[in-house]
């Protein structure tokens, strides 16, 4: 299961955080800094998209200046979550129309809504791009 999701920029500013396990505020703070240190220092070209993190694993992918990181269990299927990240980014991209970092900042509340239609309780809920986008369109038309 996904323990948490972090989207951070290269400077380590967290643009999206979603916690599916219980962590105190203090732990969250520490984890954010640690994830940034672990992921940002890795070579994008010659290193894999997976890295050991405490007793879990981080699966991450960089899109422009943003690192999308999923922290998962060691027995989870890494590639499935790596493509989960890609699907998430594709959905964000279509939803916002060529998404950029600022969209995540100014529309943070919408990003949470998008996430809730795709991933719930740390598990992937829906994997069809068109189903997700259709639902999101429906929701944004509500008052």
């Amino acid at each position, binding site marked *: 299961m996904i323990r948490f999701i972090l989207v951070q920029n290269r400077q380590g500013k967290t643009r999206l955080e979603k916690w599916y396990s219980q962590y105190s505020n203090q732990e969250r703070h520490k984890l954010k800094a640690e994830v940034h240190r672990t992921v940002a220092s890795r070579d994008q070209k*010659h*290193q*894999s998209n997976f890295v050991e993190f405490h007793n879990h694993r981080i699966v991450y992918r960089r899109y422009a200046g943003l690192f999308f990181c999923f922290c998962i269990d060691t027995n989870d299927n890494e590639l499935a979550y790596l493509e989960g990240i890609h699907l998430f980014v594709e959905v964000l991209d279509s939803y916002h129309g060529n998404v950029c970092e600022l969209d995540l900042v100014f*529309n943070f*509340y919408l990003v949470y809504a998008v996430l809730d239609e795709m991933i*719930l*309780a740390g598990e992937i809920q829906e994997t069809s791009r068109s189903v997700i986008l259709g639902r999101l369109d429906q929701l944004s038309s509500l008052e």
Partner: protein
Amino acid sequence: MAPMKGLTVFIADLRKCRSHEDEEKRVNKELANIRTKFKEPSLNGYNRKKYVCKLVYMALLGYEVSFGHREAVDLVNSTKYSEKQIGYLAISLLMEEDADYGRMVVAAMRRDIHDTNEFNVSLALNAVSNICTREIAEVLTQDIVAQLLSPVASMFIKKKAALCLLRLLRRFPEAVNAQQWAARVIPYLGHRDIGVTLSVASLVTALAQQFPEDTRKAASFAVRRLKSLVIDNEYAAEYIYYKVPAPWLQIKLLRLLQYFPAPESPELRSLLLSILRHIIDVSQDTPRELQQMNAQYSILFEAINLGIQLDIDQGLMQECAVLLGRFITSREINVRYLGLETMAHLAAYIDSLDTIKTYQGVIIQSLRDRDVSVRRRALDLLYSMCDVSSAKTIVSELLRHMVVADFTLREEMALKVAILTEKYATEYSWYVDVMMRLVSLAGDHMGDEVWHRIVQVILGNEELQLYACKIALQTLKAPVCHESALKVSAYVLGEFGHLIANAPDCAPVDQLKALQSKMASGSQSARAVALTTVGKFINLFPEIKTLCLRVLDRYRGALDAELQQRACEYYALATLESEDLMPTVFEEMPPFPERRSALMSRLLKREADTEDQRTWVFGGREINRERKLQKAGKTVEDSEEPPVAAVPQLLEVPEQTRFVADGGQTPEELARVAKSKRHYARLLWENDGILYDGDEIQVGLVAQYKPPAGRVGVFLGNKSTAPIYDISIHVACEESSEKQLVVQQATGQGPLPDSLMPLGQARVFFDVKCIDVFATAPTLRIAYTMAGAPTVSELQMPVTIAHFIDPVTITVADFFSRWKQLGDAAIGEAQNVLKTPFLSTDSGAIQWLRNVVGGAGFALIQGADAEPDNIVGVGIATTENAGRFGCLIRVEPKPAHGLTRVTIRATNPTVAKVVAANINMVFESK
């Protein structure tokens, strides 16, 4: 939802701030503003939403937001979707679990879940999965189950309901009553909507681990669903991801099947094999596009994992080995990484390692990969594939690599080298050489377990000792000697230095000099070990006593208290007039009892932290096979012969406590049984009390334990109005426990009186001794004649292995590390959820629980559990011949449900079972 202009302006303002102080100022200004706005009675919904949204933003930036919860709840209660949405978002991000408005939130959720507007239901379910408190689990589970099973709920609601249940089940397994609805969820694995199936598959995977019996049908559903996806190509077009049909669902189903044994029906079996074969065939050519390749490989790796787990076709496995061999040389780093990981899984199960061994060179090469993640997987694989024939090569490669390995990897590497060397050593010299090199190379990066283990092994193997001494002395004489190497060498020479004392250059004085030369530079703990060795030398080699005393003397003034104490004590011991004490104190250490190596527990501890259980572990072949056997064995035992297991027998004990002469189950008889059960239960946690109270006689017990021994006094009172004659009192052990428990009449007491007058009392003492762990309590047989009629009564005697438990006090941190260790090691665990209705009615109930746990021989660890009412305790059972067994207990009372969960973890399964059964009985008869 229309954008909120005020919010956008505010965020832009904050982004413009140059310094943190500026930002803080702006935030404080806004907080003050919002506070005033919230006081206005005319605040409309839009503004409320906007301000709450600003608060959420500030909280996400890390500022403390201590108000606005009421407004968030107001928003949740709004009829407008966008307001409700922000309300739930704010609550899921801002609410503390124990917030006082939690009840209002739950009420709102409940209303929304029952709403006819499906968008509101969706929002409420999202919130349930995000917030997930105990109260939600208790109040809403049934409603959510109803939504999942409802024929009218939309696909979106079903998906969300399934995952909400999963979250609640994982977090509060005891509050969701999953067994009640588990079986009804399974047919949804065949639902035509892929999203619903995917979510339900996640839920069923968790259920399958908890209720394998109730979810057995899930396997055939999963196989058929896979067939329709993989072979029949039946799926909706929108679920194709880069030409791959529903990869996530395929993976989920392949994973789910790994929690079940291979299907028994030949039809399903061959179907499953053809699915696996199909997946492997499709993956023969590598697609160009990255996404397609990843999706395809993610399925393939999961299919291989399933193939390994099913273990039904060795041909297929060999083919997988070849395929994986291709992957580990792939140019794609991710594929290399996963290839190595999956091959480690394969190596843990496959019958013949030959195919894998052909890649040994490549794998060793991967230890030098540019990516530390890949290097780690290579290490795991080398460890998994190691056997007697390849051990030397692999160990020497690992040692060679140790010097250049990352610091983060060295500890694990050291552990693995130590385990492999011990396991596959065929020559003693090899073991000693490797271990000495290991501690010299990696001493800084490993825990004390490694050097402790080396000493244990050397102590336990006589053949090793001479060689070990030689190497130890050599190590000490070398120009540099690592701290851990110093400890091992010092310990070994202290024990066995005399074995080499006659060899050239190994005379006692040489040994002492070598030790002394390295002592000065050693750390405090190493010097402490060395000092003890000096003490042992005095005993071993009286000829160098003066030299040794000089060394000790120098440390008598050491600043470090530990060193000073050792030096002073050994010095005093050696200069005592009587020379008898010295040889006793420094007698050769006995070999350590055989037990599981601490190294393995440490290794396994790392990976236990997963939500779904691992289907295999990086522990090597034996341990995985063991796990598999255990799993298989467990189901056999459960299904075929439950009545003969040790626990139920113990539970039924009180029913056997009856007069042999008595027959039927009259009401009086039943009452008496219940009463005697109560008596028995009480003696499980109190030393003195009544064991039997009948019409004619009364039997009392007084016990005193000093594990492994104890003394039990039996008092027989005549309650009737006539005298009783021909009294005999005996204790008989069950045949199965005869060798484990010895009960003898204590010597030096007078014989029983010939007769016992009314109100008279006779007593007899028994010495009990626990030789080994035993499962069944002994029987107390009391025979007498009254009014010419001989009567025999047999009573179960409250003497169980649990009575040989002594309290041990340890720190909170120690408790949890041991608790976890024992849990991981899975040697002996027993868990029961017991009905304890008295919790809510009796205010002293918690104290009573404490008394019971304390009375049962456990030291209560205060403040260990976050929940103040929970009780944790530590005890140790002592047997004469089998050693000591640690036992941890955790009692979690839930007054609201009238239930209490009791978990016992012990280093011996029988101990855990017996303690659990005892506690069970005590609670039942409260």
